[in-house]
């Protein structure tokens, strides 16, 4: 098994990132609505969570999923349906959406982990396309229209989420909780075994680890967190649509993670913010956004494989030496 991500042992230790950096990030985001448009921040945070979930799989498990949109979209549809058609409160709808993508993660994970490397990528892509066609045809998603005008509701019956700022802090709380969960996972014994599998799978097998079980667990966890991002996004934007299940969305999360830095803990957050800003500013240019997205892919792969955070980390290491 060759190494998936250009992280040296030293990098891998640093990926932990000290707790103070996470605290600083929390403070920064808590103050951010004073200067930045909160709706933009919410979008970026949802995608940041999505990318972190994806990064858990590729960066720490060495598994490249090219179908993560299916979890984002499934959770979005289920959550939006529960909130709109059944009148569920937002917290219950988000939990149900997350549960749905977790279940989908178990099923697709069991199939996908039967192959490795690029086959894994192709299988997840194909499975996601199957899920896409399912949502395209099934009536509850309303096809091209999507589920629109999803009510935000009141959180736990107290907090009215129609207020943008209240919604923002809920999104931030969800993001930070998930981020800490990922951080803990990476530094748990489970995370260490995952890293061992990524570095040398046959060796991990020979040491007696049930590799498939670890991979499946990582896949399901990643699916669940991607689902959490999708469900939250559906409540925030009051919309669940086909865009979130299409393969371009799966590519986008790969790009965010690659650009920010695969296998770094803050990389996906940085990548998500950069890509969401790019898309916001370049929106008037239509299809050129696709071209630019493609260019970033090419440049990252050819010259910038560590990503923004990875490069900064490497530069910091050199400077200290």
């Amino acid at each position, binding site marked *: 098994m060759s190494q998936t991500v250009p992280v040296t042992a030293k990098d891998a230790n640093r990926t932990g990132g000290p707790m103070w950096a996470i605290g600083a990030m929390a403070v920064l985001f808590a103050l951010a609505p004073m200067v930045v448009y909160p709706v933009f921040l919410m979008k970026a945070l949802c995608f940041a969570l999505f990318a972190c979930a994806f990064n858990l799989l590729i960066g720490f498990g060495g598994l490249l999923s090219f179908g993560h949109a299916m979890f984002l979209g499934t959770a979005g549809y289920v959550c939006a349906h529960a909130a709109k058609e059944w009148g569920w409160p937002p917290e219950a709808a988000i939990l149900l959406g997350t549960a749905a993508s977790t279940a989908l993660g178990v099923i697709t994970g069991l199939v996908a982990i039967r192959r490795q490397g690029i086959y894994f990528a192709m299988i997840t892509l194909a499975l996601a396309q199957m899920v896409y066609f399912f949502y395209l045809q099934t009536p509850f998603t309303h096809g091209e229209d999507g589920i629109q005008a999803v009510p935000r509701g009141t959180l736990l019956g107290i907090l009215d989420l129609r207020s943008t700022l209240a919604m923002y802090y809920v999104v931030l709380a969800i993001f930070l909780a998930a981020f800490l969960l990922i951080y803990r996972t990476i530094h748990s014994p489970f995370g260490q075994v995952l890293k061992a599998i990524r570095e040398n799978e046959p060796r991990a097998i020979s040491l007696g680890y049930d590799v498939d079980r670890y991979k499946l667990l990582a896949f399901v966890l990643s699916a669940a967190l991607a689902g959490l991002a999708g469900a939250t996004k559906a409540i925030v934007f009051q919309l669940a649509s086909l865009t979130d299940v299409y393969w371009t969305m799966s590519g986008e999360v790969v790009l965010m993670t690659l650009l920010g830095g695969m296998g770094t803990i803050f990389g996906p957050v940085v990548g998500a913010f950069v890509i969401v800003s790019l898309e916001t500013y370049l929106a008037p240019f239509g299809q*050129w956004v*696709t071209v630019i997205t493609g260019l970033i892919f090419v440049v990252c792969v050819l010259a910038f494989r560590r990503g923004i955070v990875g490069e900064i980390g490497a530069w910091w290491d050199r400077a200290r030496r």
Partner: protein
Amino acid sequence: MTLFGVPTQALFGQLLIGLINGAFYAMLSLGLAVIFGLLNINNFAHGAQYMMGAFCAYFLLQLAGLGYWWALLLAPLVVGATGILIERTMLARLYKLDHLYGLLLTFGLALIIQGVFTNYYGSAGLPYQIPSELGGAFNLGFMFLPKYRAWVILASLIVCLATWFVIERTKLGSYLRAATENPALVQAFGVNVPRMVTLTYGFGVALAGLAGVLAAPIYTVNPQMGANMIIVVFAVVVIGGMGSILGAVLTGFGLGVIEGLTKVFYPEASNTVIFVIMVIVLILRPAGLFGRER
């Protein structure tokens, strides 16, 4: 006249469409398999290169007045040449890295190519005429077989068999197979492996371009034509396994026919049937029908 409760006309019509789709699946998965075998790169840009082939035919006609038969010869060469350029300038830097980077790079290239064409030509298709020699249809008694469709199936079979012959039965093919097994050793025997790798990529891409020209008169020439195709072809490749060339061809045609039949008997599932088969194959035979675990 009906068969299994379905009018034979519809049944054979869908079977024919299935065979046509199968012809394209076969040619595209063959190109992917050849590229993957030697370069260990999963060419995500294959769908975009197929689309380029169709556009190339369109440009040749519009700008140079060169018709279908010229396009059939020139478009694969042009598309193959762009492939060689991509291999030399970009892919060649990735061979020492994990295979996933090849996938990511070609994915980026696919986005660029598709984005540029969509920008200039929108999502509406451009028409391309069936060449006059192949207009009309054969009357088979039970159905009409358009000549062009028969030609596509025949051409695809010829191309696939020729590729199989070159790789499995000629000296050049034996070098190729040897380099797939152990490139360092083959290089030590004095074979120029890097050049062979470049030409192989060019050849695989040219096959995609050729498929694009064949497709141009059937489907309209459209910037998006390769995007959804490539995902189905990936599933075809997973089902067939990349180990065997004939396996790729058989799987391609077989799945096309199954997809066509699904359209007759259970149209709702026609988009997903290939993916469902992929799941079943992965459960029963993870290496693919004709594959070996590598």
